[in-house]
């Protein structure tokens, strides 16, 4: 499930598109039926009137990000495009609203879903316009990393484009680490030893909490799956070659449960369940907590909790989430997907707007002006000037790891909807002792089998 973050991601991915090309298997822009043949031409353009299309924006988080995008992305488009006017509509809980509206035959012209598995459901229901002809027309096959474009494929047709590329990393309080003489961990054993040492000194090992967003659970479960069982095993399970009940996954859940019960996350389960993002980020910045396992969406906001803004003198650093063998491993993710609503009267106009949104210069604006992570498109390095070097470092390390096959699978991008919800909700029953790790995974396997049968598994990039 997307939204598995409090704030948008931001890391530069100049080389990401090329770097991630290797894992892809499916053709990037497969031939398909011509959508244009079924659609009305851009009406109004000939008469000099602008064609109006709608794009809904979520303001549940206060609307700061929505307003930034409207000001820096939508308004310039409206100013420069002579034939299309994008009407930016802001509303709370936009996903619930647009899902309901589209099912009722209305909704925004540009449709935003929380992730590929949701776009898949809408495509299967015939609610989305195939994008293959537009992909050819605008050259999306060359612009996007194939793995990212393939995430939008349903039954051989392209139905959605993925937005922000995300991954989860280990942030650490650099000042605290220097004071204590600690070294950022590379392996899981080092991570466990460090957590134990921190706790002995009265420091919370990991700043974390799910009071505002239950999806924090899946950051942890997903990381432990990929790191303990390994990304190949996760790939095998996602493609039906292995079972979620296999011992490697049981071990992963048991190890995470053990760490939760030891109070490594925020000082105990009760506090983990009640800590808000501000609360645990503040604990991290002030040095009450040593580390934070979180996505790259935290990068644009991390400075609010360190240094002058937070009234402390601390600094932060980051390393890839530790792995079994110490090699960098990044779980790949996308934030959300964009599609064209089947109910739109102007699919060509929406496609033109969609193309604009994924232009390298637009994606660079998302990143540099709003802090939002770019999609998996090739960006010009020059357009990223002024970014924090640590963000560039994330980019370079992610790039190297991806080239060497060091990538795994995030739950909110590659898990089907029901199994993903189960993964998030039911893990708390394991942590509370109500069910065992084995029972938890048996339940997951049962749901997963149902979703495989229903064809609800999003495309999985091969290894």
């Amino acid at each position: 499930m997307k939204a598995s973050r409090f704030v948008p991601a931001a890391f530069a991915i100049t080389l990401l598109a090329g770097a991630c090309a290797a894992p892809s298997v499916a053709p990037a822009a497969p031939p398909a039926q011509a959508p244009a043949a079924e659609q009305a031409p851009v009406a109004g353009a000939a008469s000099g009137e602008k064609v109006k299309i709608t794009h809904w924006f979520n303001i549940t988080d206060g609307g700061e990000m929505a307003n930034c995008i409207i000001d820096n992305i939508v308004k310039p488009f409206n100013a420069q495009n002579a034939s299309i006017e994008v009407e930016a509509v802001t509303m709370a809980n936009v996903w619930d609203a647009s899902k309901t509206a589209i099912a009722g035959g209305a909704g925004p012209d540009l449709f935003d879903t929380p992730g590929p598995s949701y776009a898949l459901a809408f495509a299967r229901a015939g609610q989305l316009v195939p994008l293959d002809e537009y992909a050819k027309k605008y050259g999306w096959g060359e612009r996007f990393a194939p793995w990212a474009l393939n995430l939008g494929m349903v039954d051989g047709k392209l139905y959605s484009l993925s937005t922000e590329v995300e991954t989860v990393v280990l942030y650490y309080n650099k000042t605290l680490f220097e004071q204590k003489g600690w070294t950022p961990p590379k392996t899981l054993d080092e991570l466990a030893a460090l957590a134990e040492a921190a706790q002995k000194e009265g420091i919370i090992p990991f700043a974390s909490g799910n009071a505002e967003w239950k999806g924090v659970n899946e950051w942890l479960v997903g990381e432990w799956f990929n790191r303990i069982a390994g990304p190949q095993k996760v790939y095998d399970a996602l493609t039906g070659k292995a079972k979620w009940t296999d011992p490697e996954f049981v071990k992963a859940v048991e190890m995470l449960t053990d760490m939760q019960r030891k109070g490594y996350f925020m000082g105990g389960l009760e506090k983990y369940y009640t800590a808000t993002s501000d609360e645990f980020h503040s604990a991290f910045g002030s040095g009450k907590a040593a580390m934070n396992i979180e996505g790259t969406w935290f990068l644009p906001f991390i400075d609010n909790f360190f240094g002058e803004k937070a009234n402390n003198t601390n600094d932060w650093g980051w390393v890839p989430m530790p792995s079994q063998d110490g090699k960098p491993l990044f779980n790949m993710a996308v934030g959300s997907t964009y599609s064209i609503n089947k109910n739109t009267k102007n699919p060509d106009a929406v496609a033109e707007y969609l193309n604009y949104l994924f232009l390298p210069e637009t994606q660079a604006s998302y990143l540099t002006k709003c802090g939002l992570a770019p999609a998996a498109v090739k960006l010009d390095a020059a357009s990223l000037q002024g970014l924090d070097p640590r963000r560039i470092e994330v980019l370079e390390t992610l790039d190297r790891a991806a080239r060497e096959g060091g990538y795994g699978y995030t739950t909110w991008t590659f898990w089907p909807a029901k199994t993903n919800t189960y993964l998030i909700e039911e893990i708390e029953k394991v942590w509370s002792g109500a069910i065992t790790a084995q029972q938890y995974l048996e339940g997951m396997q049962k749901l997963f089998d149902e979703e495989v049968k229903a064809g609800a598994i999003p495309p999985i990039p091969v290894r």
Partner: protein
Amino acid sequence: MQESFPIPSKPSFAKVSRNRRLFRKRIVPWLFVLPVLSLNVLVVLGPALSAIYYSLTDWNGIGAPEFIGLENFRRMLFDDTSFGRAFLNNLIWMAIFLTVPVTLALLAATLLARIRRGAMGFRIALFIPYVLPAVITAFAWRFLMSPTFGLGAQLAKLGIPGLDQAWLGKPETSLFAVAFVDNWHWWGFLMMLFLAAMQNVPPELYEAARIDGASRWDEFRNVTLPGIRPTLIFMLLMTAIWSFLAFDYVWILTRGGPAGSSEVLGVLVFKAAFSNLESGYASAIGLTLSFFTLLIIGLFVMLRRRGWEI
């Protein structure tokens, strides 16, 4: 021989008058009701009937539904352990709301009914939580209940330990903590209703009771309670019904967690429809919720028919 002509029959005045009366009695009322009735069919009856249909289907809310008979109900009753837990939580919720806020409201209304000076100030102060949006109330209480920054934590700093607990973070207390917050916003409204009802009780009855030597408790038991019985019973009925519709505070404060400990049926419906894309299953749970509501209404109707003064 005189020629006879048929005399055309004319409706008698009495017959015309009777037809008009029938028209006015039978048809005109329906004409008045028709606009509202049409609206009701459109926005209430239509969706209600479609919910019955969707509850018998496998439907993700966007595509074509597939008819699967009673499978959703079988799954709900025999496979889905969350349903039983949520149903039990709804019953606990109902028990809390039928007792705690009602008692508080009765007590406060009784005391306020006798206050003359500053009465309005008290009433406004106690009523204000009801008009605050749920999201504001919930966020404020989440902060107040924080084990790190909340009231308990501040008291602990002052040397009064014991209340710096993660009330919302413990499976054994989370449901009660959410109910506490909802109750905080709710009981003031109940008090206002009781207060209004109490002011309609004839003062002579209290005077007579006092002349007879009744104590305050006797007055409350024998004069006030019978006097406000219709309001009291109506609110008990509505509270029982609303208990099955609980959602907002649970969703904002705990999302039904931790570990499903504060899950109620309303939250299950939402998760099924919007997180799992299982609108058919969500309809089945929703329909079951409606069934419980009808059951409560039926119980009250039955008791009334048996002569209970409710």
